[in-house]
């Protein structure tokens, strides 16, 4: 449903361009067309990799390894899991919720969530191809500590009752 809406919006944008720029719409269309070719050429291998990873990486195993007692290993694993998970935030949140419900430590789940939105590797690959490796490597190195600090800081601020409330919220 959501997908259909996005296509409708796209169609409307297309019509709007043609109607509002009767003279220049050709230039806009060829610009968009060139962008589309670039998009397909770059994204086909990535979506293949992501789709296959999605099927092969098991959820149950992920849940076991990032619990309360997982320590530093849990943190590092959460970080890498996040960096390798490439789904939009509205798909990530249910995963994060599931991880918390199954006993994942809050800071680990937050590190997972934040590293996925901020410094995921597939994203870095695209960023590099569009903006150059200098830009993306610097942004990565700057954001890595930010993700870790924010993940741990939020856990610090939350009281035991807050965490209990989150779990209750998820069980409901």
């Amino acid at each position, binding site marked *: 449903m959501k997908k259909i809406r996005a296509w409708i919006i796209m169609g409307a944008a297309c019509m709007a361009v043609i109607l509002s720029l009767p003279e220049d719409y050709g230039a806009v269309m060829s*610009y968009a067309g060139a962008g589309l070719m670039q998009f397909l050429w770059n994204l086909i291998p990535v979506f293949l*990799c992501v789709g296959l990873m999605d099927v092969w990486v098991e959820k149950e195993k992920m849940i076991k390894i990032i619990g309360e007692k997982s320590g530093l290993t849990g943190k590092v694993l959460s970080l890498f899991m996040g960096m390798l998970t490439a789904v939009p935030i509205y798909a990530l949140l249910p995963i994060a919720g599931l991880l918390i419900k199954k006993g994942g430590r809050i800071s680990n789940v937050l590190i997972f969530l*934040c590293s996925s939105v901020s410094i995921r590797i597939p994203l870095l690959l695209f960023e590099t191809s*569009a903006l150059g490796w200098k830009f993306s490597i610097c942004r990565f190195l700057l954001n890595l500590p930010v993700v870790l600090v924010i993940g741990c800081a939020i856990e610090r601020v939350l009281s035991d009752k807050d965490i209990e409330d989150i779990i209750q919220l998820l069980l409901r």
Partner: protein
Amino acid sequence: MNRVFTMFLYALAILLLIVSVYKDRDKTKRGIQKGIWMMLGVLPYFLTIMLVTGTALIYLKPDTIRQILGAESGLRGMITAALAGTAALVPVLAVFPMVSELLRNGAGTAQMAIFISTLTTVGFITIPLEIKYLGVKAAVLRNILFFLAAFATSYLLGVML
């Protein structure tokens, strides 16, 4: 550089595909289907953005962009970019080409970095959804902290590059 990079991705995808087919045909099929659906999910957003940018580039001259988001636009430009990134809900993949186009047309590095950072980490529209899974406190804190951190990291990035 970019071409080598894309080639590497193709090689990786083909390798994964071969291993996957060898291990389990059905799972491979599902994986490929998932990949295609994900791609079709991003495609309309991408095309819409390309249309909007294409139109904007007809109207916006490099000078105007430089004024609003240029390196000299300083904090004001960064705030504009940060608010735009916070409000927008589009896959970041779709905006990279636009950002690189803007950079070529005179936008500042720090301004573009903060746009990407806030677009990826802070979501005004997704906060209600986030609250459902993380509770009010954690969700709101997470967004505020990332919004502030984006200023620090992007400022540093602008200085470094």
